[in-house]
């Protein structure tokens, strides 16, 4: 009898890859940099973590709200419209994230010029927290759209027709049937996108003007300035919100599965 069969090789491909490519680097990194904490960490990390969480949460919340609206609209479009809308949303993914940041810098410059000539007073949009949240949202809306669209698939026209036949008014139907289904995938989208947004450093670097420093931006700054140990310790602190988000997601999924199983 073979000790290792083809079935085992098939089954173990992903776990082995994850062990070698995910657990091993992460474990050795935490082991090397997690033991002696740099005293400067307490000086910098709390404020930066707070900045990171606040701005990424704001961008995520707006992205989920807009992406959700877009996903619901997509659900009820004519079939041709659905294809075109999905294509338009995908189009943004073609041109790349960093290039879009460059474009936003110029667009905000034009808007500033336009507003200052109309209002007679200079309004500053670029190089600010507003610009960072605006651009992050622009990048996150497509992700929110895809996750929530996927979550709206179980919504069937027959369910809505049945509710309508039973006398439910349209606004009640929207609130009582469509919104709860959308909210479920929206909460999943919020957590997934928050995990991605909190690790951003490109947008704060390009549009923040050096005033909106996420943990990732500061870690890269110290790395570039030759302080790789401190940069790595700053990177470690990002695992804190990451773990909280993972735990929240796990609880959410367990709660849903519990409901499905009747407890």
């Amino acid at each position, binding site marked *: 009898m073979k000790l290792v069969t083809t079935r085992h090789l098939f089954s173990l491909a992903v776990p082995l890859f994850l062990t070698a490519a995910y657990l091993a680097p992460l474990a050795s990194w935490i082991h090397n940099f997690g033991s002696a904490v740099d005293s400067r960490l307490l000086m910098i990390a709390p404020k930066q973590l707070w900045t990171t969480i606040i701005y990424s949460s704001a961008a995520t919340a707006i992205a989920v709200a807009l992406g959700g609206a877009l996903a619901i609209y997509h659900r009820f479009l004519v079939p041709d419209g659905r294809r075109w809308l999905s294509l338009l949303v995908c189009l943004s993914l073609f041109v790349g994230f960093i290039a879009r940041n460059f474009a936003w810098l110029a667009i905000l410059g034009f808007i500033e010029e336009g507003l200052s000539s109309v209002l007679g007073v200079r309004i500053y949009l670029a190089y600010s927290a507003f610009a960072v949240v605006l651009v992050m949202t622009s990048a996150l809306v497509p992700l929110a759209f895809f996750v929530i669209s996927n979550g709206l698939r179980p919504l069937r026209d027959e369910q809505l027709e049945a509710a309508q036949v039973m006398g439910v008014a349209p606004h009640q139907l929207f609130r009582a049937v469509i919104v709860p289904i959308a909210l479920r995938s929206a909460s999943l989208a919020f957590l997934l996108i928050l995990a991605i947004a909190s690790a951003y450093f490109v947008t704060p670097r390009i549009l923040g003007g050096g005033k909106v420093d996420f943990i990732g931006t500061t870690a890269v700054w110290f790395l*570039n*300035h030759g302080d790789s140990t*401190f940069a790595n310790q700053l990177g470690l602190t990002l695992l804190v919100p990451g773990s909280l988000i993972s735990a929240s997601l796990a609880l959410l999924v367990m709660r849903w599965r519990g409901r499905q199983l009747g407890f």
Partner: protein
Amino acid sequence: MKPRLLVGLLLILGVALATWLYLKRGRGRELIVVSYGGGAYQASHKRAFIEPYQAQTGIRVQSVVWGAEFGKLQEMVRSGAVPWDVVEVTASQFLRGSREGLFAQMTTLPDAEEFKPLPGGPTISPLGVPNVYWSTVVAFDPHAFPQVGPSTWQDFWDLTRFPGPRALYDNPRGNLEFALLADGVSPANLYPLDVTRAFRKLDELKPHVRVWWSDGTEPVQLLLSHQVVSSSAWSGRIVALGEREKEIRYSWKGAAHELDYWIVPRGSKSIDSASAFIRFASRPEEMAAQARLIGYGPANSQALNYVDAKILPHLPTAPANWALSFVINATWWAEHEQEVEAFWVRWKGQ
């Protein structure tokens, strides 16, 4: 289904493998020369050093950009995987790198006839050759101040006479000195820096700093597009604008000079070729060619004999400009940089 799927997969893997093999093949006779930030400065390297060197020797030189990320250099040397052959570093990085053993001893150096340091300037060492003096000056938008603009760091801090948003370099090096100059400290008494006093002075200006810029092209763009009224800026980037130079005004009063060095990182596979390149780039004619393009002061005093008379007033090392400015103390910064940088990041975030 199976043959087509296999053919498709094989095609994809084949393309990937071919690309990998091509990337992996030996570099042959090629040097990698690393200079700052791209844009005008990298262009000056290409035209003044790289193209003539390639034409003379037939060795292909690849110009790579970096933003003085010292950590990158450290990681490379410590890991032993050093793809770079010639790197330009700042004076404080040169001191720190020499101490940490990051640089290789060059096998050939410019001789005494070719390279004469400036009076009081550093000499050649086997670990590094001085390259250029570059300067951070106070610049302003004449559109915002058509008559008189900020010409000193005290003016830069004066928000009553010269209101409007500012921009400063996102690094304590230079900014602490400017804050102390604005607070009345004379250039001769700057060092050792009174860090607390400098941060207190910077507190006055912080709400009006619109952008903390990280590369030389940024302040120039910010001034040209009227997004800030005044900024610290690297003089060479303004000079490189050419005809558009008159759209930005700047002053040499209180300008901070820093020196760059050519080094060969330890572990480079082409130390001989790298040393030969550095020797070529340190020749007076080549350094004068670069000064013509970027307006930075060659560390080789012989080069000033080859620089056009109309370029000379723009150079940091011109006697009139040198008298108004100061040189950043690389030794002080090499010792205190890490500590001060943490205060800087915390201070900015407050």
